[in-house]
């Protein structure tokens, strides 16, 4: 489903050259849930953003259903429509209602009729538990509600894979659960997911595989059971000691 081969992303900033992602290779099978963890600045977000082309990588290949993002002929908009992304800051469109947030790309990109798009939107809002807020503007919603709308917005495109970049990090603690519940349900339904998170409980419960990154590299990979009980690498041990 997703195959990353030796992906390198170099930032040339005034602070110097940063190898944010430094040779990451991994494969994610259909229906698999992969959780990416690691200290801040280890390149998790950058790697995730490379997968849907928000960040153009410097070296390597990323194949999504066999389509190579490194290939110049690849239509990146088409790929993005298949790859849903949920951001830490929700990034809902503030000038559009919840319903319009969900129908905009369906209509503009998928060319669905208003009726079809709205039916889909209502069904998804119901699924994430916010069907009574369809006409509201995002600013009227709590953080947890906004993030659930953002998940629904991504799902409305019928993506083949969902990427989550610390979806609960900007939330008040009491709202983390409602968002994780939606994600767990998605995982149970067989959605292919790559999740960057600090929620170790979620990783333990839902992940098929845990990837630990540090300084742009994959340091350790394994099942949650292996990773949380018996990590091999010192850096992983240190990290776990700090977060658990």
């Amino acid at each position, binding site marked *: 489903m997703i195959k990353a081969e030796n992906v390198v992303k170099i930032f040339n900033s005034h602070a110097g050259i940063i190898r944010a992602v430094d040779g990451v290779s991994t494969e994610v099978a259909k229906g698999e849930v992969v959780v990416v963890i690691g200290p801040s600045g280890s390149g998790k977000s950058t790697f995730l953003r490379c997968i849907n082309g*928000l960040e153009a990588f410097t070296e390597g290949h990323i194949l999504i259903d066999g389509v190579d993002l490194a290939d110049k002929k690849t239509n990146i*908009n088409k790929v*993005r429509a*298949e790859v*849903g992304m949920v*951001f830490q800051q929700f990034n809902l469109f503030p*000038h559009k209602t919840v319903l319009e947030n969900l129908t905009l790309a369906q209509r503009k990109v998928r060319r669905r009729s208003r009726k079809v798009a709205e039916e889909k939107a209502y069904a998804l809002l119901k699924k994430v538990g916010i069907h009574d807020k369809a006409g509201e503007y995002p600013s009227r919603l709590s953080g947890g509600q906004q993030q659930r709308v953002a998940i629904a917005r*991504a799902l409305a495109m019928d993506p083949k894979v969902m990427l989550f970049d610390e979806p609960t990090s900007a939330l008040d603690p009491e709202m983390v659960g409602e968002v994780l519940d939606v994600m767990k349900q998605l995982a149970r339904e067989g959605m292919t997911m790559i999740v960057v998170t600090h929620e170790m409980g979620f990783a333990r419960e839902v992940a098929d595989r845990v990837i630990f990154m540090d300084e742009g590299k994959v340091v350790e990979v394994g099942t949650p059971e292996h990773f949380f009980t018996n990590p091999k690498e010192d850096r992983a041990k240190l990290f776990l000691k700090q977060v658990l």
Partner: protein
Amino acid sequence: MIATNKTWPWKLLLVAILLVMAAGTWGAVQKIEYQWRWYRVPQYFLYHAEDAQKIAFDGIVQTIKTSGDVTEVVLVSENAEKLTVSIDTDTLQVSEGEDLFEGDTVGFVRQWRLGPLMMGLWTTLWLSAISSVFALVLGLLTGLARISKNFTVRGLATIYVECIRGTPLLVQIFLAYFFLGTVFDLSRNVCGIGALSLFAGAYVAEIVRAGIQAIPKGQGEAARSLGMNSFQTMVEVILPQALKKILPPLSGQFISLIKDSSLVSVIAITDLTKSGREIITSTFATFEIWLVIAVMYLLVTSILSQIVYYMERRFAISD
């Protein structure tokens, strides 16, 4: 400390200061013994024109029918041509049966007409309005070009903006009129509108660019991550949010344009300022006319500011 919301002492102070300033001005004007002629001013807003109604042939007055203020005079020529003229009753200068020659006055029609100050104001307004529309389109395109990824497009936009912002509007108007106007054979109105549009367009471009850059990056990323292309992202997500943000500076720019348009009077466009100068040469009421013109500009700009203020409040609903 207890917070007080007594504002009246400060209001009183404000009024006192204004009164002192007015008195000072008054005193200074008294000293130079200026002859105020305010009574000459109103006619330049509105005047009662008397248009002479003349006979177009040699003939006689056949009938005169008066009904109230209006009188209808029927004239017949030597070869039985008939002509009916309507005039104001009290200006009737002929009697029934009288012989008239071509060009004789039958009477007058009085009519209220807008004076040069109003005509000048009208010119200023439409000139500014048309220039604003062009400036908006030009500024929007240039603002987008300024953040384009293409070097050439970005370079052209930057050069345009820097050239306009780095030279005085007065010089631009002269260049537009004497250089471009001569080379391309353009009328003064076209040159005036062109110069004002180019001038305001550069400032609008900077406002648009700043407005777009003020939208959080996450908005564009969210739209792109849903598969929307860069055009759809701009039109559906970025611009609607940016335009709301730039409405106040944008309207400020257009209000400035009304004031800046006074400079087109140097290429003999009869706008409000030019009308004023023309009136002064015939009345010598220099102080009065310039004061009146200042108040007229002030009125127009304050009315517009108020309209914008209400629009902003209505726009604020979705957040």
